[in-house]
């Protein structure tokens, strides 16, 4: 069966055990969560959670049904078929010396990123874009010596 990336958007009560229940729904079926992003909505009692995962259509549908059965989940939407743009964000700390600064800036500009902090010989970069661009930007910067980084899960609407 066709294995592909799926994006599931969930509106759930903002409660301590909700994430555990959602995660259990995936892990109970041997499914991996590739990325996850969550934040409250306009109504602070409700959280919006975006999950990307890999699986065949059949299993994804089963997972959605199971999620819908959870009492604290209000809405589950499969965004995959809509083909909406997915975006993620990276923060990268790396040495910025005179020599590699130009090369770094060239990459940052190419991906429309930003240097959001500079310190003694270090800089923190912020980059956002689709997964492929972020992979490429990361690989290019890696050549120049990344010190530490954080990357969010994908979001979409």
């Amino acid at each position, binding site marked *: 069966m066709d294995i592909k990336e799926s994006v599931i958007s969930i509106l759930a009560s903002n409660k301590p*055990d909700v994430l*555990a229940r959602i995660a259990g729904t995936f892990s109970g079926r041997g499914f991996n969560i590739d990325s996850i992003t969550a934040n409250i909505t306009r109504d602070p009692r409700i959280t919006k959670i975006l999950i990307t995962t890999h699986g065949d259509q059949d299993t994804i549908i*089963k997972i959605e*049904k*199971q999620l*819908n059965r959870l009492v604290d989940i209000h809405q589950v939407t499969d965004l995959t078929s809509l083909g909406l743009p997915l975006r993620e964000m990276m923060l990268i700390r790396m040495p910025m010396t005179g020599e590699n600064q130009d090369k770094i800036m060239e990459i940052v500009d190419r991906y429309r990123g930003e240097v959001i902090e500079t310190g003694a010989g270090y800089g923190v970069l912020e980059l956002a874009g689709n997964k492929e661009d972020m992979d490429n930007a990361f690989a290019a910067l890696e050549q120049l010596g990344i010190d530490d980084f954080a990357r969010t899960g994908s979001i979409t609407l």
Partner: protein
Amino acid sequence: MDTIGADIVLQILQEEGVEAIFGYPGASSLPLHDRLKDSPIRHYLTRHEQAAAHAADGYARATGKVGVCLSTSGPGATNLVTGIATAFMDSSPVVALTCQVNTSLMGRDSFQETDIVGITLPITKHSYQVNNVNNLASVLRRAFQLARSGRPGPLLVDMPRDILASRCEKADPPEETPSSAAEKVPSNLDQLGKIARALNMSERPVIIMGGGVKLSNACDLMRALIEKGGIPFTTTMMGVGSIASGNGYDLGFIGTHGNELANSTVHQSDFILAVGMRFSDRSTSLIDEFAPLATIAQIDIDPTSIGKNVKVALPYVGDIRETISALLNLVESRDRSAWLQRIQQEREAKDFCLPFKGCGKAGHLISMIQEAMPKETIAVSDVGLNQIWTLRTWKARTPRGLITSGGMGTMGFSVPAAIGAKIGMPDKSVVAICGDGGFYMNIQELATLSYYKIPVKIVVLNNRHLGMIRQIQDLFYEGRFNTIELGNHVDLVAVAKGFGVPAERISVDENPEAALAALARAEGPHLLEVVVDENDYVFPIIPPGQANTAMIHGVGD
């Protein structure tokens, strides 16, 4: 006395109509157990929390009402786990009340602290931990409502000791919910029309009923549908008893240990109407070879049950009672004499070569037990050969008259579940039928029976072995017996008497009439041990990993 959280718990239990609960105390539950002393709610102290959970489950299965069990924190709560999982697998409405250490001690590995909400996440329909006494009433009301609504199941409410001991106001009466008395009409009549047309057009239809039919109290409507359409039916293990046996359209139950006629009819059918069942592996065996010729229509209240295991051409999500009452108008009777004749011929051929439905002497004995007991007796089976013997030979007369752990197959279920059933249905006789292995697993409940003088009758079919496992080793592991012998060094009659339960032993070869009469007559609990040959198996049976048509027979069948 000031009102405290514990009083709120009891107030809501009473409001929900709870008359009896099953539990075990400990430090964290003391505020509640203290207030129970002056409450009209009866608390049965089982001898193990697992038994309290099974008793609540048995109570729920026998009455259709929510069963309640109660434990302290830590080991008390973890002891409930098997019982909660058993209720979950069979969609039984249970509320498990667990007490927790004080809020200030939580998260510190305190004495008897355990994350019971976390442990039971995958085996509850939902769970709550209450962290404010003012929420206690609404959480408990919601728990009861969730346990019995939609697809029923177990709810767990974890209550820290300090919350139970906190002063508070009596709970306000529940908000009036607008009554849903008006007959609900199924929403998607189009789809229902399609199902009816497919059923009406089919030449070799069969209906499969699961436990959902009983849960939705739709057995009468299903019988009407079957009789109106002239459609043969089978059930899953959980559906056994939905329609009183002896009905001419009854094929027995399907699956690994089911009736050959049911399996073979489903295999030949061109249309299956599945109602309140999930096509579990126990029912379908090798899924790829299940009912290859049939178009499948499935009705269930739980969307996750639909298409979970098989491809369903005509799904329908809805309450079974409402759906079937609408479907009833759309179904036409049709001449299917060729199909019914074919089934009848097969039935006669199979009955002829399979006395007592392949259950041998034990099966014969079980039918004699039923004859000796009052007509409306509730039978509670355990797990193992004894379960299959009971399910195949006990003639269920009412939907809730035969109780079994189907989805979980929990050994040790029968005696505590029978206690719950008897407490819930005091006017009916209750008999637990178990194997020696399963009997040992909750043997301590004999003390509960004798202490409260609960007149549950127990029949132990003692083959001195884990019979069902022995049969598998015999047939599929070249007879290399291992780890299945329980031995005959224990005098079960003396053990029962030691617990204060009168008991008697017979052999399955003896005339059991006198012993059965004593069992039926006993005014208190009573145990009958029946010595059975360890080579008496269940036939036919489907080898692991094979199709429903691959039933194999024993010698002489």
